[in-house]
C-alpha cells in the first residue's frame, strides 16, 4: 500500500484495517525520499524503494498486490510495470496530472518555477477541502494541519521538487501503461478536486489488464480512503482481490459462483464489449 506524495501511511489506515479483518496482510511502508519527514529524492529513488519493499514482501508471501493512493497509485503502476509477477494492482484516485477543480489554472507555471530561485522556497500549500467531502472530518483535519503540519490525509505543504518528480513519474508511467497486464482495480471520485476523473479514464483505456474494473464514486473528493465512501472503497478492494484470486483458480472456487441472473447478464454484456 503506497500512500500519497509527501504523506504518511496513516491515510491508508482504514483500508488496511478492513483488509486485515478480511484475512489479508496489509503492509504500508514508509519510503525514504517520498514519505513525509524524509529529505526529498528523485522519483527513481521512490520507485527503487517501492520495488525493494515489494521484493521483501514477495519473499514472505505467495501473492503480493500493490495498492496506491494518489501519486502512490502512479508509483504502484511503476512497481507493477517492473514486477509483472504482482498479483493485482489497486489504483485509488490515480494522479497522473494535477487537473482537478481545486487546482488553479495557472498551475502549469509551477513547471517553470522549478528553474527559478522559487524552487527551494515556495511550497504548495494544501488548502480546504483537503480532499475531503465530509465536513466534520475536514474541520478536524484543518485543526491537525495547523497544529502539526501533517494530518491523516497528508502534509500541509508539498515542496516544488517533489511535485516536479511526481510529474516526471507520471510521464514515465503513462508511457509504460500499455505493457501492464496485472489485474487492475481503479476507484476514482468524479468530484475529485486534485485529479480529474479523466486520469482514471485514461489509465483504464490504456492499461492492458485482462481483468479490469473501474468504479466511480460521487460522494467523495480526492482522499477516498478517508472520505464518506471509505467503506465502499475498502469492501470493493477486498472483493476485487478475492475475485482476482478466484479468477486465477486459487482460493476457494465456490466463492466465485455467479447465481444472480442479472449479474450473469451484466458479465456477458461486459465480455461482449471487451471482445
Amino acid at each position, binding site marked *: 500500500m503506497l500512500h500519497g506524495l509527501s504523506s504518511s501511511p496513516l491515510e491508508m489506515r482504514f483500508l488496511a484495517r478492513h483488509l486485515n479483518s478480511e484475512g489479508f496482510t496489509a503492509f504500508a511502508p514508509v519510503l525514504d525520499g517520498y514519505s513525509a519527514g524524509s529529505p526529498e529524492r528523485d522519483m527513481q529513488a521512490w520507485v527503487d524503494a517501492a520495488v525493494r519493499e515489494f521484493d521483501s514482501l514477495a519473499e514472505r508471501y505467495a501473492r503480493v498486490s500493490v495498492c496506491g493512493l494518489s501519486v502512490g497509485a502512479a508509483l504502484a503502476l511503476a512497481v507493477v510495470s517492473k514486477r509483472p509477477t504482482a498479483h493485482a494492482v489497486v489504483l485509488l484516485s490515480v494522479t497522473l496530472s494535477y487537473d482537478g477543480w481545486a487546482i488553479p489554472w495557472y498551475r502549469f507555471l509551477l513547471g517553470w518555477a522549478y528553474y527559478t530561485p522559487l524552487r527551494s522556497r515556495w511550497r504548495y500549500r494544501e488548502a480546504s477541502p483537503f480532499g475531503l467531502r465530509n465536513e466534520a472530518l475536514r474541520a478536524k483535519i484543518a485543526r491537525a494541519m495547523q497544529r502539526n503540519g501533517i494530518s491523516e490525509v497528508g502534509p500541509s505543504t508539498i515542496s516544488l521538487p517533489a511535485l516536479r518528480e511526481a510529474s516526471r513519474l507520471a510521464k514515465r508511467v503513462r508511457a509504460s501503461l500499455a505493457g501492464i497486464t496485472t489485474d487492475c482495480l481503479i476507484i476514482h471520485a468524479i468530484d475529485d478536486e486534485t485529479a480529474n476523473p479523466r486520469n482514471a479514464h485514461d489509465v483504464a483505456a490504456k492499461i492492458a489488464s485482462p481483468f479490469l474494473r473501474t468504479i*466511480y464514486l460521487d460522494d467523495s473528493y480526492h482522499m477516498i480512503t478517508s472520505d464518506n465512501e471509505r467503506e465502499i472503497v475498502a469492501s470493493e478492494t477486498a472483493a476485487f482481490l478475492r475475485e482476482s484470486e478466484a479468477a486465477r483458480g486459487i482460493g476457494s472456487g*465456490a466463492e466465485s459462483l455467479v*447465481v444472480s441472473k442479472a*449479474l450473469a447478464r451484466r458479465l456477458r454484456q461486459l465480455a461482449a464489449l471487451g471482445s
Partner: protein
Amino acid sequence: MLLSPFLGPAMPGALFCVAAALIEYFFGLGPALTVMLVGLVIADYLFVPPYADFSVFDHSDLMLVVSYPGVTLFIICLIERLRRAQFRAEMFASVSKSRYEMLLRADNKRALRLRTIDETHRLLRHLPHYHDSIILIQALDRKASLRPDADHAAGTAHSLPHTSAPGSRFSAVHPADIARLQNTLSPGSHRLRIRSGDHTYKPVDCVGERFTTHAGDFLVLRIEA
C-alpha cells in the same frame, strides 16, 4: 478570391465562425480559441478589402474585428457549457453503472448465502428424518475437491478420515465397501453390501446427497428407503 466578385466583402467571418464552433464541438476550448484567432487574422487579410494587405484599417476591418470574435466567443461559450454538462452527465452515468455493478455483486452474494441457508435447513431436516438409515456423513473440503489426487492419498481400509463421522448403520457395512468408499465417495447412488444375518451380506441400494451449507459441504450417505 475567385468568388469575390459575386459575394463581395459580405460576412467575411461567417465561415471561420462555423469552423471555430466545429472545432469547439469536437476538440474543446483551447483549440477552438486558437482557430478563432487564426481565423480572425486570415479573414482580415484575405476577405476584407483591400485584400492581402494589413496596412489599411478602415470601417469594414473594424466591423470584422468587433462582430466576428463576439459572435464566435458567444457560440464557443455555449458549446463549452454543453460539453461540460455532457462530461458531468457521463460521469454520473459511470457512477450509476459502478453502483449497479456493486449492487449486482452484493445481490449475487446474498443469493449464495440464501442458498446455503436453504441447504442448511434441508440438512437439518434430513438428519433426524433418515437418522436410522444413515451410513456415513463426510465433510467435503472444497479445495480438495479441486485437487482429485489429494483424495486418493487419504485413509486406509478400516479407519475413517477425520472429516467423516459414522452413522447408525456404519457398522453394518461390509469392510471392503468402506475401504472402497474412502476413495470413491460421490453424490449419487451406490450399491453397498449390508449385513443382514450373522455373516451374510446383501447388496442394498444407497444414495449419497450433497449439502452446501455455510459451514462447508457435507455428503450424507444413507440406505435408500
